[in-house]
């Protein structure tokens, strides 16, 4: 797996699990979860954090050598998101941004019009834009056309843990995309992460599934394995599903057992 590199905007990663930090019960648990997940890229909400402060989430990431991906969580308009992205660039010295523009607090679903608008503005401004989007193949294509470095469709609403509700749309998005496709939001447990990878996603992003688990550290390790298992299965090529059984042991070429020496 070491040579199976995930390249995002020209940057190589050997881990295909991108983590978020929201909901972690403590900094200590967060740190050990990040280590267990093997992640190399982790997103932080710029609105809930002062980058100048020591001993906070950013200190943990820097100590672990994990790249920081600022996000625009909590923004409802393209204007707010663009402003937040610019403040993040200034504070953290990175032009990468995970772009989130949500439509309402109840569903936290992306507002497609505001999202595309913000993406176009930020791409023009030199940002590497990684948009959190609906599982809509048309919108995904438009975001790619706008110059986004990846598309990150939701499996189901943020924090819901409902998994991938429309796997077919993921297949459609993956088929058409020329940029990495990352499952963002909805994973509840390790099989969800594995399914995303089996469907052809390049990586999985998640936070709540780990940070709000009863044992976040164990779940982080489970997610790492889920992503790796799904990726291997995708590369291996699954067998076509069949309606009827097909014996795994062929009828010919059976071992001839010595009648004088029973097997047991």
């Amino acid at each position, binding site marked *: 797996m070491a040579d199976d590199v995930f390249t995002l905007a020209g940057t190589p990663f050997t881990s295909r699990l991108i983590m978020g930090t929201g*909901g972690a*019960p*403590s*900094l*200590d*648990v967060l*740190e*050990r979860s990040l*280590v*267990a997940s093997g992640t190399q890229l982790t997103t932080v909400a710029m609105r*809930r*954090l*002062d980058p*100048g*402060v*020591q*001993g*906070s*989430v950013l200190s943990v990431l820097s*100590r672990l050598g994990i790249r920081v991906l600022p996000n625009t969580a909590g923004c409802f308009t393209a204007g707010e998101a663009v402003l937040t992205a610019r403040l993040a660039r200034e504070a953290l010295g990175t032009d990468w941004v995970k772009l989130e523009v949500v439509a309402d*607090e*109840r569903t936290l679903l992306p507002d497609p019009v505001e999202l595309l608008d913000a993406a176009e503005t930020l791409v023009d401004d030199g940002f590497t834009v990684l948009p959190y989007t609906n599982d809509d193949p048309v919108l995904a294509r438009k975001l790619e056309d706008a110059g986004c470095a990846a598309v990150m469709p939701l499996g189901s609403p943020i*924090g819901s843990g409902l998994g991938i509700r429309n796997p077919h749309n993921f297949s459609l998005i993956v088929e058409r995309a020329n940029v990495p496709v990352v499952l963002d939001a909805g994973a509840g447990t390790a099989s969800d992460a594995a399914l995303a990878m089996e469907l052809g996603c390049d990586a999985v992003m998640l936070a709540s599934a780990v940070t709000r688990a*009863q*044992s*976040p*550290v*164990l779940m982080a*390790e489970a997610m790492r394995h889920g992503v790796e298992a799904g990726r291997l299965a995708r590369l291996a090529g699954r067998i076509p599903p069949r309606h009827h059984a097909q014996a795994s042991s062929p009828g010919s070429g059976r071992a001839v057992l010595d009648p004088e020496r029973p097997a047991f």
Partner: protein
Amino acid sequence: MQPSETPPAQDARGTACAADTGAVPGAADSGAAASAADVPASPARQASAFASGDGGYDVLVAGGGIIGLVTAWRAAQRGLRVAVVDPEPGGGAAQVAAGMLAAVTELHYGEETLLGLNLASARRYPEFVAELEEASGRDTGYRASGTLAVALDSDDRAHLRELHAFQQKCGLSSEWLGGRDCRRLEPMLAPGVRGGLRVDGDHQIDPRRLAAALVSACERAGVVLHRAWVERLVVRGGRAAGAALADGTVLGAEQTVLAAGSLSGRFAGVPQDVLPPVRPVKGQVLRLAVPRAYAPFLSRTIRAVVRGGDVYLVPRENGELVIGATSEELGWDTTVTAGGVYELLRDAHELVPGITELPLTETRAGLRPGSPDNAPLLGPTALPGLHLATGHFRNGVLLTPITGDAMADALATGELPDVAKPFRPDRFTGAGASTASARDAAPGSARPLREGLPA
């Protein structure tokens, strides 16, 4: 839970509760209050006698919030000569805190060791309050009125039921009520309440009155209060020897206690390897007033998780209604923001619609001293003569009684009581830089990765 213990048994739900909810070893109140005759001479005389030079005080406490004050008061009761340095004794996070004594409703997965300390402190509260009110001549607003945690939709209800199951596993007392039963107890609750947990053992106190009472009790016990900023810790010959003030005065002491709340992590003069890994976590809190005609409005603390966010309403007997709190990692910023106030009012209004009629009397932000595992750092450090009493995070008010007792033990005998031993600062050896040490020795959340896995 000591690290050497066998991992707790695991059941089908995935998380065991290892908290010692019964009698805690060494938890018997060790206050051993000194009689009035043992109390040192008047503060003024003592200040002149010991204000400078070596060996002035037995104990110097840097930080006069409730944790520093209770440490000073309890140490003075043991016959030690004690001083507190703080520009405003009785200030700090207690001026903002709501004062919930919520060991049961604040239960979190992975914090079972902290639960043991929280429960031990909660058990001491009635006696602690009685003694403090007697010693200070002040009321503290302690109220044994209980807590009701409610859910407003099916997601939050499922979350609360899970908490209930976890509480029961930990041997804690809480009762599940249907929505209508919740509203019979508290008629001002929104009709949409789907169910709730009644916890009669989670009480409340008014932290402002608690802080004022501790200041009085300290003064009466002969604790010297230096109203000044500490410039830096003084270290001589590899020992903490007191503190230097901004005006150059040096206050010498045999033992120094760092109890500076969220500022503890950036205390000048403290060697890097014993500097506590404590950070400020901002909380915005609102205060409303319940007019007499509306009383009682609410008769116990109401709390809920509204769409994943925590909100609580704490009604005091004097008509104050406290609504809190946000949780923000923004350094030492204490700005009250429109968004913070909006979110608190939005969620509180969803819970108790009638609050819109009440006067909004105060909006304020405070800083919780957060440690990496959310638990306090108590007792001696690797630097001889230096103790810590900090990092209490959300539980400073709740942990005040046991912190005072444990710190007085450590200062008087050199030994922490058993109940406090899991919270020694050395669990973060390397000032939080090493996850390995935290994992091996930290209480509560810091547990070996494989602990609790089915065999």
